[in-house]
Every structure is written in C-alpha cells, then in structure tokens.
C-alpha cells in the first residue's frame, strides 16, 4: 500500500493538546502503520505524545498527517475523523 497523507485544520478549541493529543496517540497506536504529523517544517512521530505537544498546534492550525504501512488507509480515515469531529466538552465550571 502506498503512503498516504492529508492536510486538515484543527477544530478542537484547545488545539492539539492534552486530551485531543492523547486521543490521537491512542488511536495511532492501534495501527501498525507508521504515523507522522507535520506542521510547518516540524515533523514528529504521531505515536509520541511529547512529539505532538511540541508542535504547539492550536485551533485553526494546519497540520498534515502522513501514514505509511499495511493499514494506512484505515488509519488515516480514523485519525482524520478524530481530528475533525469536535470533542465533547471537558468538565469545567
């Protein structure tokens, strides 16, 4: 399977931090494909929470997700879905 990639804008209010980043890493780890995330010139491992946090991607940032491996198509679809659906609000009052 050829490597796939797609560019998206972050919809989450908190950007790609904390909960969204944790969810992303958890989802990426379910696949055997290699996942990398690019923002500007920075490229990080999509299975590394530290890496994702270093991107400092906030709401509205453009990131591209690159997936390479046997389950690439499925992985990309799952990750895009995760990044483009708003999260249920975290408890806050």
């Amino acid at each position, binding site marked *: 399977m050829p490597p796939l990639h797609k560019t998206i804008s972050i919809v989450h209010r908190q950007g790609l931090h904390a909960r969204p980043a944790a969810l992303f890493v958890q989802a990426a780890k379910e696949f055997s494909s290699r996942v990398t995330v690019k923002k500007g010139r920075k490229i990080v*491992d999509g299975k*590394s*929470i*530290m*890496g994702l*946090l270093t991107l400092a991607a906030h709401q509205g940032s453009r990131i591209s997700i690159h997936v390479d491996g046997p389950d690439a198509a499925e992985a990309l679809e799952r990750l895009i879905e995760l990044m483009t659906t708003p999260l249920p609000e975290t408890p806050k*009052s």
Partner: protein
Amino acid sequence: MSTTLKGIPAAPGIAMGKALFLDGEELSVPRRSITEDQVPYEMLRLEEALIKTRHQILGIQRKLSEELGSEHAEILNAHLLVLEDQSVREEIINGLRSQKLNVEAIFSDVLQRHLKAFARTEDEYLRERTADIEDIRKRVLRNLLGKQPDAVTRLEESGIVVARDLSPSETAQMHKRHVLAFVTDIGGRTSHTAIMAKSLEIPAVVGLASATKKIPRGARLIVDGTRGEVIIDPDAEAIKRYELEQRRYLEVGRQLLHLKDLPAETLDHHKVILSANIELPDELPSVIAHGASGVGLFRTEFLYLNRQDFPTEEEQFEAYSSVAKQVAPHPVIIRTMDLGGDKFFSPLQLPSEMNPFMGWRAIRFSLARPDIFRIQLRAILRASVHGNLKMMYPMITGPEELRRANEILHEVREELGREGIPFSKEMEVGAMIEVPSAAMTCDLLAGEVSFFSIGTNDLIQYSLAVDRVNEKIAYLYEPTHPAILRLVKQIIDVGHAHKLWVGMCGEMAGEPALSLLLLGMGLDEFSTSPVQLPIVKQVIRSVEYSFAKSVTEQAMKLRTGKEVEAFLTASLKQVAPALVE
C-alpha cells in the same frame, strides 16, 4: 498590618489556617559515569521505574474516577502516554550511549529539554502542560531513587497548601480533611488543577505570581477562593469578617437546593429578574444550579484572548447560539467585546497604555475597528433566532457613541436582510452605564436603547477616582458612597421615566445589604456571579417591597458611606438575621 495578595479565583469558598509549603522539594539528581556495557542495566532500571510510576498513576486514576467521575481520571491519560512514549525512550537510549551517564541524569535532562520548549510557547494550554511533564519527571525520578511517592500524601497536619504549582495528580490526592485550601504562584482559571479544586470543593486561588516568596513560613492565612484573595497574617477584624463570610458561604450551600426553583419575588409579590454574569460558556451548569433566570452579562472577551488570529463569525455564532439555546426561554445579554484595559488582545499587539482603564478599549475600540465589530454583530444577530438574546455596548460615554454603534448595527441588519440570513428583528439592545458621563446623560441615551445595565465596578472606580487595584487607596472604593447612591438612583429613575427596564451587572448587585437598597430603588434586574445568586434571592424573598423602599428612602438621606453601610446592615438584620450574623 496584614497583607492581601490578589490572584485568580480558581475554586470558591473560604478557608483559614496555617501555611504549609509544598515547594522547595528540588530532587537532586545524581550524575555518575557509566560504561557502554552498563547501558542495558540502566535501561532496565528505567523500565522498572516507569512501570512503578504507571501503577501509581493508575491508582490515582482509579481513586479519581470513583470520587469525581471518569472524565477527571481521563486528565491523567496524557501522563500514561508520556511514560510509554517511544521517542522519549529513544532519546534516553541515545543519551545513555553518547553521554555515558546514569539513567537518572539522562532521563531528567531529556524531560527538562521538553519542558523548556513548552515553557517558551505563547500558548496557555501548552504552558499548563509543563506542570504535567514536571510531575512525571519527579515521579519517575523518585521511583528511580527509591524515594517516597510525593509530598501531598506526606502532609502531617491540616492547613493551606502553598506551592509554586500543583499538578493535577497532586491535586487529586488532596483531601478536604487535610488540605483546607491551596494557593499557587502559577496556573490559570482553565488549568486542570483549578477545575479539580472546584470538583473537590477545596477553595483555591491560583496565579498569585509570588505567593511562595511573599508568604512567610508558618504564617496564618485566609484564602478567599470566591474573590481570589489571600490574606497573610490577618488581624482580628479580618478574621471576624471572614468567619462571617464563611458561615454565609456554608449557609448558601444549605439554602441552594431549597431556593433554586423559587421565584425572586418579595413577600408582597414584587418580582425582579435574577441573573448571572458569565465569562465562559462552560459556566452555564453552575448558573443553572444556582437558580438564575437568565444571563445578565455574557462577556465575550474569552473568544479573543490567548490566540493568534481573530475568532471567525462562524465560531462566534456557535458560541452565542449555544449559550442562547441552553438558557432559553430565559434571556442572555451579550456584551460586545470589552477589549483593552486590563484585557490583552493578542492578534493586535496593542501598545501598553499608562492608564488603560481610561484608554482605547470597549466601544471605543469597536468603533475604531468596525471591521472586527461587524463580525461580532453579525454573529450575535444570527444567533438571536436561537433563543432569547439581547445585547449591550460597554463603556458608552455619551449619545454620539451610542448612535454610531446603532448605525453600524443597523447596517449589519440590512446586510443580513439582503443576504436572506434570518435574525430576530425584536432583539433588545441596551447600553451599559458605567461611566459618570453616561450616568449624567442617561436621559439623552434613553431614546436609543431598550434597557440600561449599570456596571458598578467601573462606575465606582471612575466616579470616586479610585484605582481598584491599588491597595493603598482600596478603602476609598465605597459602593455606599452617597455619590454612587445618587447616580444609581438617577439612572434607575430616568430609565423608568423613559419606559426602559434597568439592570445591574456589577459586584454591587451581589452584596446582600446592597441588594436590599437596590431593590428599594426599583432595580428590575440583578445580575451577579452565580455563587452570590442564592443569597440575593434570599434577601429579596425575605422582605416586603414597601420595606425596601423605606430603607432606600432613609439611606439616601445619610451623609457618609459608612453610615449607609451600617444602616443597611442593621435593616437587613431585622428581616434576615441569618445573612448578617
């Protein structure tokens, strides 16, 4: 002489006790050389420490989800992911091989490098994550060094925890029995620590900047988590005052459920509207729990702060319509942006001003930047079909500004009409009366709007020429000053003479004795912070409207703020002794 520190109120409530310091536990990291063949052994030690840490965090997570629910436990998922992060592990292996140092030193260096990178960013959310990473670093190091898990669990006496910062996992381990309150140097209103403190019902003040330096060891403290104040070594008078506040706060808790669904009306059935001031849409559940019948002030600055670009029309529309829908059929009053002053607006990089409260802010800013203002007006108008929305302009100083703002609003309405986009044609528009010149010309403003909302925080500060932030003159900030009483009374009377309704959205509306006065003046709407709502409702429900009117009449004749205050307190005591004692 006691000192008061001002910070960000993170969790409401009042506590008094001894300061217990949690900081200063800088773990010393041993550094020693290793040989190439010791690398696998060092890695093995790290793996063991990581597994141990993982178990500890899972334990805290379990405790959290039992006590507070699983959404709080989820906060620690990021911790777990850092522990199993492959790229961090690779950095450590590379470090061990190239530098030939023990794993404590390498691990600590790698995490500190990441910490520094996070601390440099402009992003508030990301900066707050540094507390999480630092927490992991310390936990793993303690396990590598065979030390006790952490300081919070070792607290031997009860008191008020003072720390530079607290991680969510540390906060989670606090128990109300031991930790009466906590105060920290850093942290914001949205930090997980603040959110958890609220759920744990531990009063907390964060963002105090230098509490750990200013509070002496062993000092006695009063923490007012509702106002965000910490009083160091309070005098007898302050202690007495806060003991009263504390009793009131507890009383409010008890009354809350009972009062929640009862109307805000006097014994002789004079009804007023009791609503809440909110800063973030997330505060709505608390507004509803405290029995508000609407939102009297929905501040919109949150949309503009801590970001590099402007909020889009769509984003604003979503925020406004979601609040409108949740509160409907009750009204929500949106205040158009009040940027400038002490509210920093990142995309514009406004220059700092000598006197920001009198500077380029609020409606002045909106009229100077109609491009940004129109986007907000479009979003508000579009959201107006999704509930009972009203809007008001902040910091109006006279008829000209109001007319100009209404002209822009009119243009935006026509534009939406041409585009065939639905909006409510009946949406009420009001003016905030918070500048003395507006108060004195409110008869000239009345023709342009449907309501007035009195913003007392600024009205008092401008009328009495008192900078509220300056401790030395804080005693002059007197809501009961005869000048303030006259101004407020005049605004209400003129409003009513012109068939407008008049509300108030400053802190004055939330003070029990003052609410009696305002009720007597004929104020139609009281908007206050959610925690003050039940107490104001109780005042209103305890009196006859005629009694309040006679109290106001007498108060207006008194000569000093102190006399007014004493008189109002005595009057309130007659009808609702529980609120004064």
